[in-house]
């Protein structure tokens, strides 16, 4: 079929070029000795050194990684529970509302989520005195809230094609419900949980808008620093940062593919 339709391959190639040429450009420019994007004056690591010595960027990166790790873990717990509730509990009171609340953050414009959470924190502080100051905690809560939706969707769709007779078989063979969960359900949905966690981690690490709304004076995340730097103009330091992120993602990807091959082989029955 694809041989008879060469334009399909062409469209695919053009699509990938569109997706990857800008990224390749970032990587290339990060090694450019010149500050200008239009002239190549030689290969250099100087922007990486500059990045390393930029305490503001490094500090923001560490903060963002911390927030992302905590948020992803929180979202994993809540999202897994929500996914289970939607996939397994059948009909319960308030299911429609629950389903809507779980799915909405997927499409909700970030400015609305950010503004509404900020106003909540302000109102809560006025009524209960907590949170006294906005910062890491409020950003983390905000990130858990919207990342939960993504984890829930991943877990729910994994459970939707989960063969429940596997759990019945385990129970039939004498395993109690918690043993069934620990020895059958959990190992089989583990890949979905891992990808849910990674997704939540990435979303948190990447978020500018919601963090800007819910952050306070002491907490500046990496995207916030990058954003204000970009408004002043492009600097090759940012290209270097981009290259490091791309490298990290690639390494994770290779690892995930290795793991995924084992998991998908196990799931192919």
């Amino acid at each position, binding site marked *: 079929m694809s041989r008879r339709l060469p334009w399909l391959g062409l469209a695919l190639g053009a699509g990938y070029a569109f997706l990857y040429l800008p990224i390749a450009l970032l990587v290339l420019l990060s090694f450019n000795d010149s500050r200008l994007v239009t002239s190549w004056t030689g290969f250099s690591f100087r922007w990486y050194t500059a990045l390393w010595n930029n305490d503001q960027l490094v500090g923001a990166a560490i903060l963002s990684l911390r927030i992302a790790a905590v948020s992803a873990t929180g979202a994993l717990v809540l999202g897994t529970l929500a996914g289970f509730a939607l996939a397994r509990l059948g009909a319960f009171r308030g299911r429609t509302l629950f389903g809507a609340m779980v799915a909405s953050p997927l499409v909700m414009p970030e400015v609305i989520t950010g503004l509404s959470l900020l106003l909540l924190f302000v109102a809560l502080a006025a009524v209960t005195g907590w949170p006294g100051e906005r910062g890491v905690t409020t950003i983390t809560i905000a990130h858990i809230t919207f990342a939960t939706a993504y984890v829930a969707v991943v877990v729910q769709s994994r459970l939707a094609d989960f*063969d429940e*007779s*596997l759990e*019945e*078989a*385990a*129970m*039939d*063979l*004498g*395993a*109690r419900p918690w*043993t069934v969960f620990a*020895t*059958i359900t959990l*190992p*089989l949905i583990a890949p979905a949980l891992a990808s849910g966690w990674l997704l939540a981690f990435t979303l948190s690490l990447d978020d500018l808008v919601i963090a800007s709304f819910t952050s306070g004076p002491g907490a500046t995340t990496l995207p916030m620093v990058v954003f204000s730097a970009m408004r002043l103009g492009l600097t090759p330091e940012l290209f270097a940062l981009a290259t490091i992120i791309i490298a990290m993602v690639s390494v994770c990807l290779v690892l995930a593919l290795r793991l995924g091959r084992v998991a998908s*082989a*196990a*799931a*192919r*029955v």
Partner: protein
Amino acid sequence: MPPGNGPAPRGPGGQKGTEPWRDPEAEPYLRLRGLTRRFGEVTAVADIDLDIYRGELFALLGGSGSGKSTLLRMLAGFERPDAGTITLDGQDLAAMPPYERPVNMMFQSYALFPHMTVAQNIGYGLKQEGLGRSEIAARVAEALELVQLKGLDARRPHALSGGQRQRVALARSLVKRPKLLLLDEPLGALDKSLREATQFELVNIQERTGTTFIMVTHDQEEAMTMATRIAVMTDGRLAQVGTPAEVYEYPTSRFVASFLGTANIFEGLVKRADATGALVESTAFDAWFESDSDPPKPEGGRVFVAVRPEKMRIETAAAETQPHGANRLSGTVRDIAYYGDFVMYVVALPDGSVVRVSRPTETRITELPITWNDPVTVTWPSFATVVLAQ
């Protein structure tokens, strides 16, 4: 339940030892009383009473939605009965969760754990019992030998063929030595070529282990060849329970008569009923049906009679106008279906209804002696006429 003149019993001589259901003194192993399960408005299983004896290979036969799977799942503990009791070997099972029942199940999909090896799959149930490592290994090895899968213990399910998976599933459910083994469409996922060999092997294993098997199937051939007794289910009820020969030769209802094999069914009124047999007059056309067994209804009662196509004879008639008579019908051949081992004739009667008659192909034929539009007479002996109760 068996008619007075009794069908040919299954097994040699029909001693009481092999047919405990004929012995009024015998103690049933599994006893179901008033078992009922509803899903909303639908009653999936309706008030079922059933006794099953130790060592039986009992088949629940029915179409989809007949309630056979729900019944099986209640025995396993996955469905809670709305009413009724389940007693196995004197023990009440109804309130027991699946993981405490001395009952194991072989799932239709096999439900092999994809993240475990064959040995881990088979050993899973033993591990739950808290057995030691070496004992588990020994029992797993024994089970693998029973199903002839030695040497495959380190494989994962996805690296097995369909037939091998079926054996692993069987070994896994047998290794706990359950009092009752439930099999949900055990051969349903196998190729046709594998199925027959596996049928015999399953029966073999059942006899060797002495375990009581209950099997759910929609395939009448599977039920007939394997089971000691069959329960035919429809609409959540047991339509008939009996040995394969009983339910085939002595169906009690129109449903059973036409569900198992093919049957010609006629409606009529009982004209004569006594110990020597019955005479039923057709209400559709001018003919009589003679039977040598007791009719279930007295004289004047409205009944249905069933006649199997293979028990009928078909002959070319001299003239189309020959009248009907006792166990004799006249008509013309409308359709012929050649099956290889037999030929099925569809004969149209003057009133528009049809009768199916089969004829074995004992000799090699290239041209059928009876062909389309031939006037024919169909006759059968009186033992072939079964007067149905419902």
